[in-house]
């Protein structure tokens, strides 16, 4: 493999990485914003969960390429938005069930005690149930983030930006080191994001980290 392509294109790599970060992470944020209310509704009105989860799961069954092509050809054009919307929809199949599981595993005595000391429904949700669900929700965010970073490359191949464009470009112009750099950066990005999420979770849930420490 010839490496001389790399030194002259560090700027390009940085730009592609930054773009990839945006097109992969914004969908996770959007997905979370959609999943939280959907999950809360699913737990409160149990009958809503099968249809909500069913639809979220079906969305995931759509081939990503098909959706990227559809969006860029007919809906939002050749822009990063055409990657972000499908990727956001894909995160729902992971995030909705995790929000639901997180809320469901709040112990019943805790919920009962919260009610009995005088938490209203909304306050109980915000101050008791969601905080206790954080570890399970963050576990979902980690999966969604890595999946989104990976799928984001496909969007790049479709010309929607990000590290995927390196594969496209490297293949067409026969620059293996460019393809290789794209792979390494994708993996690196996923790894760094995952580590950051683990650290964020630890900071948010000292009670959960302490639990592990005690069990060990």
């Amino acid at each position, binding site marked *: 493999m010839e490496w001389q392509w790399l030194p002259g294109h560090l700027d390009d790599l940085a730009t592609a990485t930054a773009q990839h970060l945006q097109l992969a992470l914004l969908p996770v944020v959007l997905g979370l914003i959609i999943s939280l209310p959907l999950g809360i509704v699913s737990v409160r009105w149990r009958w809503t969960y099968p249809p909500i989860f069913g639809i979220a799961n079906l969305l995931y069954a759509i081939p990503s390429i098909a959706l990227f092509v559809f969006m860029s050809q007919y809906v939002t054009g050749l822009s990063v938005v055409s990657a972000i919307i499908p990727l956001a929809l894909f995160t729902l199949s992971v995030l909705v069930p995790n929000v639901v599981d997180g809320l469901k595993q709040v112990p019943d005595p805790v919920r009962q005690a919260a009610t009995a000391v005088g938490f209203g429904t909304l306050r109980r949700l915000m101050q008791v149930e969601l905080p206790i669900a954080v570890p399970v929700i963050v576990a979902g965010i980690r999966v969604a983030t890595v999946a989104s970073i990976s799928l984001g490359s496909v969007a790049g191949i479709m010309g929607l930006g990000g590290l995927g464009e390196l594969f496209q470009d490297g293949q067409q112009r026969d620059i293996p080191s460019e393809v290789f750099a794209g792979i390494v950066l994708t993996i690196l990005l996923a790894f760094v994001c995952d580590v950051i999420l683990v650290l964020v979770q630890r900071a948010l849930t000292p*009670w959960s980290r302490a639990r592990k420490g005690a069990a060990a």
Partner: protein
Amino acid sequence: MREDHLITFDHVTKRYADGTVALDDFTLECPTGEITVFVGTSGGGKTTALRTINRMVDPTSGRVLIDGQDIKEKSPAELRRGIGYVIQQVGLFPHRTIRDNIATVPYLLGWDKAKARTTAMELMQRVGLPASMAKRYPFQLSGGQQQRVGVARALAADPPVMLMDEPFSAVDPVVRAELQQEFLRLQSELHKTIVFVTHDVDEAIRLGDHIAVFRTGGELVQHATPADLLANPADDFVASFIGRDRGIRLLSFHTADDIALHDSAVVPASATRTDARAALAGVDGEPWLLIVDDARRPVGWLSAESADAVPESGTLGDAGLLPIGNTFQVGVDPLRSALDSSVLSPSGRAVGVDADGAVLGVATQADLAAAIRAVAAGDLHPHALDRAGEPDEPEPAGGA
């Protein structure tokens, strides 16, 4: 000045959609500043009754009043912030520190954060938790410690009313006894109006000022003081629910201050064989001497034979003394302790002491029997004694 916070159940019925009656026309008053225990078989409606007080359950019909005011006049959340609530599984918030768990209701009431935390620290001390636990999380505490936090959380905003649903049932018997004792100590300082649910009749008798006995179907069978419940169970259900030994247990409710005490057989350890013989001459019945030290605290029992074996020059304190076992404090300990002391004593006699542990005298089993007869005469009502002869209990054919 103390306000009234009595809880009134006024013909309260709870019927579920499937027709199950959890509580059937329940009427009762739980007096201010006292502990009312709801006890009974499972499905008896005691927890349902408790939960109607803070509107965790809304009755199908009837009213619940606190201090004469219908609880429906307040929103559930507002009502609940003024009522402490402790449950068996504790239900601490796992994501909050011990201090913040305790300060839950003050936070909800919008207290200043510093004030809420100071209150929480005071309460930790009050329920016997070290201040060093303030920043720990619930899972780092033992079951008994968690329940102390549960009690502290319920007390944080100083509510006049406390509801406790089997709070001490999930811990081992040693810890339970400890928590019960501390609970009574706290109550003697705080005088809350407490409704306490348990399935353990011993706990009910130990803690309750009043006991309401429930039967499956949500029916209140009897409402009485513990002593009256033991002496006069309303029917066979209550009698069998209370269980065995209720006569003995009744003796826990009478202090042993009417027992005749004798001190002619009480001799100092420094006495001689001659003194012993003189003392024994004045003792009725079995020849036993109680040896005491300079402060009149009991040292041991000495039989007449052993006293005779003491050398002329020796003192009784050096003779072969038998252990005292338990003593009872006159005017404080119940008759049951005196009886216990007698049973465990080698001499068959109970040793009565004062607050400093100095011997006031000894009681023979005949003395105890007289005191026990007095209790029975005062507490047991004749109709209760006649019950065995009532026709609703058919005699087995060809009887005894």
